[in-house]
């Protein structure tokens, strides 16, 4: 494994693509701590010098050695982002993908850095969540419009059918359930009885749908890039991040994930934005699609199962010594919250 500094390797990578004989420097290189899955690096690229110097901000996403969504393959995510780069959707322009391990040891892609900050779904000390009431009133409807835009993408025309198209009907939901059950099985941790109870219910209540759309897969507070308004200007959504779970499926899977109790940030608001019923009304208005409560109930429960599968995978990587990252260890004491969420959604506990 090369010990050459990351900056130097990035300079060589970009010189071959953007240099054209101009001097090129990588500055302000920093690794993000927010993402628990892929490794994320921020940096500035300086092209040229003197009066002609140009500065561009980029983000590199690299496959981790081991992690929450292993086995990793960045290419589908890159291909989707690349295909959507010119869209009005606030997805970052994503020009480069590199699989050659000689460059950064593991595959990575590079996208343009968008302005804004990423409010995270942790409960703050004030208990007010990440947004003010005024911000919520603007961002809630806007984020549902953006979600509706993602679901309206003509994925066949964009050549995104490499994402494995499910057959209409029950296969759409059944395939997702099977995918996450397989992850739980691979992690090979003793399943909590409450998880088994939820899986049995899900298998018996697989909904049907004929709607197959692009599904972001991780559309929720923590993946929204927001520019706060200043001087009375309203906030705006500048980016939708982390497309690593993108697939083709039921659009209500995205809605249920966004509205899940996982992302309330200590508030009663779905993704810190609006009460779930109001968020559903905004999505219905933006998409023209009914938020079917039966499908949403299935995907709500599946959302918790998905998060448990992700945590089991991280715990397994930690236990096997493949992920020397203590953030994986904290999942061991995060799981009880998810088990309680399952118990609530299954109505064994009051509160759902």
């Amino acid at each position, binding site marked *: 494994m090369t010990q050459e500094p990351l900056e130097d390797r990035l300079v060589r990578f970009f010189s071959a693509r953007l240099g054209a004989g101009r001097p090129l420097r990588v500055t302000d290189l920093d690794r993000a701590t927010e993402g628990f899955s892929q490794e994320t690096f921020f940096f500035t690229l300086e092209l040229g010098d003197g009066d002609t110097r140009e500065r561009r901000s980029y983000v590199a996403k690299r496959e981790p050695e081991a992690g929450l969504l292993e086995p990793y393959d960045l290419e589908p995510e890159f291909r989707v982002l690349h295909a959507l780069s010119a869209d009005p959707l606030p997805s970052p322009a994503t020009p480069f993908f590199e699989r050659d391990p000689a460059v950064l040891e593991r595959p990575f892609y590079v996208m343009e850095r968008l302005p804004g900050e990423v409010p995270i779904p942790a409960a703050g000390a004030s208990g007010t969540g990440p947004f003010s009431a005024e911000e919520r009133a603007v961002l809630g409807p806007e984020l549902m419009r953006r979600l509706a835009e993602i679901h309206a993408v003509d994925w066949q025309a964009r050549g995104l059918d490499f994402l494995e198209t499910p057959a209409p009907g029950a296969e759409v939901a059944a395939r997702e359930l099977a995918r996450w059950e397989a992850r739980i099985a691979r992690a090979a941790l003793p399943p909590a*009885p409450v998880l088994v109870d939820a899986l049995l219910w899900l298998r018996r209540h697989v909904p049907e749908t004929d709607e197959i759309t692009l599904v972001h897969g991780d559309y929720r507070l923590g993946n929204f890039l927001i520019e706060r308004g200043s001087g009375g200007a309203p906030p705006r959504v500048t980016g939708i991040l982390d497309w690593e779970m993108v697939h083709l499926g039921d659009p209500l899977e995205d809605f249920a994930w966004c509205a899940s109790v996982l992302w309330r940030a200590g508030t009663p608001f779905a993704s810190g934005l609006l009460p779930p019923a109001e968020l559903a009304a905004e999505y219905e208005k933006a998409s023209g699609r009914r938020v079917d409560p039966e499908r949403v109930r299935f995907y709500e429960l599946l959302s918790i199962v998905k998060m448990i599968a992700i945590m089991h995978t991280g715990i397994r990587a930690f236990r096997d010594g493949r992920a020397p990252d203590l953030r994986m260890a904290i999942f061991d004491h995060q799981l009880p919250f998810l*088990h309680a969420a399952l118990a609530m959604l299954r109505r064994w506990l009051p509160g759902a």
Partner: protein
Amino acid sequence: MRIPPEELVDGCVRTLQERVLPALSSRFARGQLYAVIDVLRNLRDRVEEKSALLKAEADSAADALARASEALRAGSAAATAAAEEIAAAVAAAPADPLASRRGALNEAFVRALERIDALSEPSADAAHAALGGHLAAQAIRDIVTLKPSLLEEISRG
């Protein structure tokens, strides 16, 4: 706990040594970190999950399984057979060590859920409700021992 205490300690030590120590330049901080590693390595073979927690979980599971078995006895022949299996599994769970007892009862619980799921009759609903009572109670027991999360600090660094 999905990570046995000794594996948790091993993982902490490995991460601190391989990932955190190389990033520390302060001699004081490095010395303190070495002390943490030393403490953890010596704690490794002296810790285990609290017996009171294991006992509470095992007792609750055994009680729920007994009530589920009782409910199934009022049902069809298939339900009665399931009741016998559940009662036998509870009786077969070792009394100690408590971790083994908890593990065996959880396995019996999972099998009971699957068995009851395959039945479609009122006795199965009553049995399922009995098991649900344990699922709810255990969820609460697991949460009350947890400390406030540092997730925001962990995320922000």
